[in-house]
């Protein structure tokens, strides 16, 4: 239940993600020769990554309305969203990720795949271009982004999943709220403040969440300099630490 986005600040593109989970979850940084990944200690899932080519990704999940209802009714973590025979787009992407040289190449790889994907919003970025992908089992859409984009947990183009506020209030409200704030962001400190912001902790539309879902980590990726700022807890509490792929 994450908030992901990309923004152009001072002529450079940045990618960001607040990772939200119903239950607390620990992560670690995997730094190898070809990439830098944020990985879950629980199941090894990759929350975000950047490679030596300066290509980076983040993903947020889109789930069915039925499942959303179950989650909100039960407020439980034992509901799985994994549906057999669906491919996790990031798990597929990382099989070739170290060798990818541009965001477009990654887009091409995913769009050209014959896999039936787990419904996802994916943002891919390099130092020159931002692409927003909506990926589903049978259809996908990619759009190039000029200045900024925010994606939460619903599709804006594809049919699957929540369509309106009533289907999943948090996702729609969070996206609107984030979009209303993002235009004023033009520096890294402002972006960090944005990711740590909440107007009402009792509501679930904040960027930094502490309600049904809580933000367990936050990251900002700078593809040009091939570095990542990572906060291993809610960004309103913790501090971002810089990880550089070159070192």
């Amino acid at each position: 239940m994450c908030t992901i986005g990309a923004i152009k600040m001072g002529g450079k593109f940045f990618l960001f993600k607040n990772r939200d989970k119903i239950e607390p979850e620990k992560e670690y940084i995997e730094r190898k020769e070809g990439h830098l990944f944020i990985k879950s200690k629980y199941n090894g899932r990759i929350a975000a990554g950047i490679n030596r080519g300066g290509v980076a990704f983040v993903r947020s999940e889109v789930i069915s309305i039925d499942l959303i209802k179950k989650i909100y009714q039960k407020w439980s973590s034992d509901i799985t969203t994994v549906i057999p025979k669906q491919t996790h787009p990031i798990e597929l992407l990382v099989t070739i990720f170290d060798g990818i040289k541009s965001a477009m190449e990654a887009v091409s790889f995913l769009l050209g795949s014959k896999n039936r994907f787990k419904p996802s919003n994916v943002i891919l970025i390099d130092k020159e271009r931002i692409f927003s992908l909506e990926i589903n089992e049978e259809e996908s859409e990619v759009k190039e982004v000029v200045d900024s984009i925010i994606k939460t947990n619903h599709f804006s183009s594809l049919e699957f999943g929540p369509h309106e506020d009533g289907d999943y209030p948090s996702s729609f409200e969070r996206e609107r709220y984030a979009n209303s704030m993002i235009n004023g962001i033009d520096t890294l400190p402002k972006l960090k403040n944005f990711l740590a912001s909440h107007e009402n902790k009792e509501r679930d539309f904040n960027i930094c969440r502490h309600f049904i879902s809580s933000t367990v980590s936050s990251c900002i990726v700078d593809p040009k300099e091939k570095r990542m700022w990572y906060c291993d807890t809610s960004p309103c509490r913790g501090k971002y630490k810089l990880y550089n792929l070159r070192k």
Partner: protein
Amino acid sequence: MIPTIGSEIEIYKTPGGYMMMDLNSGKLGGGKRLGAFACLYEQASELEKKVENIARAYTWDVRHDCYVVFDIQLGIQEIEGTSYVSPLIHEVKKAIEERGYMVKGFIGRDKIFSEDPKNWKVVEVNDELQVKSISYDEHALEDLAESEAVYLGCHFAPPSCRKNQWDEDTCRNGFINNFIDLPGVNWLFMRGNQHSPYYNAVVFSRENELNIKDDSFPSIRGSDAIRQRLEEMRRQGQRYVVIKDISKMSIGGRGISFGDLDKPTTCEGIPSPALVMPYFPIEPTKTNEGDVIIQTRIIYSFEGKAKPQFVFAKMYLVNGMSPEPYNLSSFCTDFVVWDIRDYFYYLKSPSRGQLSCRKVSTTKNKGLRRHFESVIEQCMSDIGDVERGLQYMGTDQVKLLEFYRAMKKKKLVPGNIHPFLNLFNRGK
């Protein structure tokens, strides 16, 4: 006269200035955007490195430092207030440099239907592909007239433009591709199939101009006969007629005109000899799912003409057309591609400069898939005709030239292309 690369442009220096002819630059409603589309499709699906291949196809016989000439409308896009030349043009530059030659400069055509040399402008481009200036420069045009140039007006690629295989096959296919795009030759190849758009085409001539004694070439002579023919087409439910002047190359769409069969046609204005044929007898087709007209092209595999690789269609919103135009091009808003398998790819016009591509399962629009399948079925027969035509002619250049000369005697192909066909012999 300095012949330039690829046989697609000629520049003449005349006492009155420079006269520039771009041969096969693309017809009205033709596939000029195919190259741009191919770039986009390549980005979206990575089936093959088509852009590089197309660029190499355009430059396979570059032998000197040269200019790159292109259509400004297609080749330059404004993104965030900055103008850039297209990736295809960039790849052409790289391909020329890979061959060890320099690009002397970029020349853009501003108004493609104008012969005024002032529409040919020097485009200054920096290393980041940004356009720094566009200006008329007589000295540069003078140099262009004396130099070789790679012309990017017609964005089709020879089917054999496989990477690093610029062998005799490539040359032969380049020759064939350019040759069979002539209105008359196209008709000669493709009139045998009832589904072919050329099936009902006839050669029109005034009185005794046409030198055809072979009854297998349908022809009509004189104004009364053409009036009767047009009336017959109208009775058969045809809406439009297209007239292709086969005595000339199709230069920037010139020599091709469209007429509304519901309106009186002035026969006196019809050139002679000309092909007179229904406009889109089988396509574009209105789909069931909405008021959309689609104009379909099949893109064949590099491995063989009989193997469709994907289907490409231009989409026109019918509601946006009022009154119905003869030329649909300006109403084309979207493209759709079928990968011959399970997906459609819908794309916004590349002219916006930014990618927007939607991949949708064909199960979402079974009608469109059925339509594409039927088009393939029909067009495979056309391709069979072309293949048979090529077999008849043989596939070496000598036989092709013999065929061309025979057709020229019958006035069924333009009489002025001989020098250009010879270009494909150069360097081999």
